[in-house]
């Protein structure tokens, strides 16, 4: 029990249990309406937090609701905010560091998922933060800031749900599609952190972009490779992969793959679906997302130049 926060009733509470999920009356699950090599629309904006050195907001397009109207079937979209604090001097007690010390944190808001999340960091959040750090560490030119540190904080305001309600009610906690939503979240974290770092003006070798690809299977159909999967759209996800990609150098700074890649080969060898194909497709997704990031950076830079030109005469005149 956390005495520093307001706690709920000591007896504990349960999330609402919907009658329709118990009676077996299931709603038709959503289907993917876009093409296999098409990613969702991305909304990206920098400079949301004036008190931070750099900040950005990232949102994925909400898929259209073309199925029955129900509280259990509302589709969610990924919503992330990121703030960058620094580079700033390390505290006096810290040992000497020849380059910029990077620290990353990923935190889910309590209302980010169907189950209320706690304020205390859990292992999933630490996992995401570690992956994010790997993706960003090679991108920053750390030698330019000795003895300093930078904090990158990502808050997940809304995550993607990858389990249908009936699976949840049946106690099927680690069901067939468990944890695939984390892949899209990591990819979003990488992109939004990259935008916020650029907004803070920290030197990078290139902007790093996140991309996801997955091997999915619909019932009675061969496995299929898709870009930017939305886990609730697919009956079964066999494997998924996230990359952090630098386009101008053609480098991958981070890879995270999950699932059974070999199980997806169709036996005849007509469609190559190995790990390499999965990574290639994830890189494709990153390349597609890069356009949005570059456009957002250009917009914010133009706005900055305009405001600094407006201020310029102030500095030069003397009284």
């Amino acid at each position, binding site marked *: 029990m956390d005495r*520093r*926060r*307001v*706690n*709920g*009733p*000591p*007896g*504990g*509470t*349960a*999330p*609402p*249990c*919907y*009658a*329709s*999920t*118990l009676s077996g009356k299931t709603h038709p699950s959503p289907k993917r309406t876009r093409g296999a090599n098409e990613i969702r629309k991305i909304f990206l904006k920098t400079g*949301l*937090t*004036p*008190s*931070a050195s750099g*900040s950005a907001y990232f949102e994925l397009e909400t898929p259209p609701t073309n199925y029955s*109207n*129900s*509280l*259990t079937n*509302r*589709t*969610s*979209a990924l*919503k992330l*905010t*990121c*703030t960058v*604090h620094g580079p*700033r*001097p390390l505290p006096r007690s810290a040992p000497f560091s020849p380059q910029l010390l990077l620290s990353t*944190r990923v*935190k889910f*808001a*309590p*209302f*980010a*998922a*169907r189950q*209320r999340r706690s*304020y205390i960091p859990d292992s999933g959040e630490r996992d995401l933060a570690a992956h994010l750090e790997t993706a960003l560490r090679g991108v920053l030119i750390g030698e330019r800031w000795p003895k300093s540190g930078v*904090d990158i*904080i990502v*808050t997940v*305001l*809304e995550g993607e*749900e990858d389990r249908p309600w009936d699976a949840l009610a049946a106690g099927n906690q680690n069901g067939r599609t468990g944890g695939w939503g984390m892949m899209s979240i990591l990819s979003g974290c990488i992109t939004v952190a990259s935008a916020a770092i650029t907004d803070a003006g920290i030197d990078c070798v290139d902007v790093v972009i996140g991309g996801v690809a997955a091997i999915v299977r619909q019932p009675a159909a061969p496995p299929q490779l898709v870009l930017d999967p939305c886990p609730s759209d697919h009956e079964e996800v066999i494997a998924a992969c996230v990359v952090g990609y630098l386009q101008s150098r053609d480098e991958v700074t981070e890879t995270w793959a999950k699932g059974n890649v070999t199980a997806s080969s169709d036996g005849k060898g007509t469609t190559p679906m190995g790990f390499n194909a999965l990574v290639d497709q994830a890189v494709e997704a990153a390349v597609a997302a890069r356009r949005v990031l570059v456009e957002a950076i250009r917009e914010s830079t133009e706005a900055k130049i305009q405001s600094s030109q407006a*201020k310029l005469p*102030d500095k030069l005149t*003397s*009284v």
Partner: protein
Amino acid sequence: MSDRKGLQMEFSYVRCRVAETLPLELAPGSPAKRLRAAGNSQSFGPIPGRTKFALQIQHPPFLHNGNQNNSIHHRTTPPTFPAHTFAKLAPPTYLTAHLTSKGVPIRPSGRSPTQFRTPTCHAGSLTHAHGSAVVRCGDTAGVCGVRGEILRVEDVADYRPKMAEEEERVDTEMHSFQNVRREKREDSEEMARLGLLVPNLELATGCSPTHLPGGPPSTLAQTLSQRILTLLHTSNLLSVHDLRIWFRPPASAPICRGQEHEVMREEEEEIVKAEVKAFWVLYIDILFISLDGNPFDAACFALLAALCNTRLPHAWYDADRELVLCSDDPAESKQLHLYDMPVPLSFGVFEGDEEAKGKKWILADMDGFEEGLCRENVTIVVGEEKRVVRIEKDGGGNVGGRDMRRLVELAVQRRREWVLMLRDGPP
């Protein structure tokens, strides 16, 4: 010649310090302390953000090598600083210069002392919460999510069951003023005892460099959470009636709260033994995205906007399954009823720098810069019909009864604006 060189050195020293570590600590005797404002320039007037301040740099004693007259030469052409540099070098002087400028006193943000920031609000953007709002007041922005969960009465340690007859009696009893008040007090006592409202405020989202994550919530975050909890319980904003989940033995047709009385009268022949089986618990989480002063007012606005947006699904007790079930039909869900709209207004009292000669200014809805300069803070919460719900005050005794009356008037005025915005959406 050596004197001129000395000035340049000092000037570049100050520039260098400003660039390196901001905000500059004004330690007594440091070169920055010797900077004095010569007033804002006549030609530009108090245009916020563009106001220029001429700074005179007095020479440290060791630079005065005999000839005092030389320094007069420099005073005729003092070096100037842009306004934001001056604000960081000497914050109290900067704010005083703004407030004592010719004509009307104006704050660095361009507002008059008692002008507050108009919030904007976007409600219902979060999918997984029952009610949500994203609000922005100037550069302070936050997200509030309200989520209902179910507390079964079996899980409450010493629960006193409340029967429907008793409920009926309370409803039909003569509604004298004392009865209504007693009832409201009992309501909020029951709500507090059961812990049905769980507000939490989170600042460790990177919203400001002073509240970074890692470690427990900061003192400010803890204080704000508790203040909001107290406000929820003392303002009669919500009623425990709307949070009860009933069980009625002829459970063939689930009964909505609004139709309850008709149904009760229809079934008067039968012995109705309806009882409360569960309660809705509202988890109210407020996350700040950006912080630039006055988090309490912004949090309250986010809270009110999210509660206005909250729809709880229709819930009933299923005796066969011994479970509380909810309907997933959005048409059956019910809007949360708010009985009042408590609107806060926070003020700070700025006492000026040493040259202000004991003057004081009351600044409404401070931003982060002003908050750092004010010791005395007042928060007034007003409800319906100009009822003062709470007054919180700390840090000094400058605000007297007459000022308080004026501040309450301002808070009432702000409440009118907020209520319009919350009820009808943005204009």
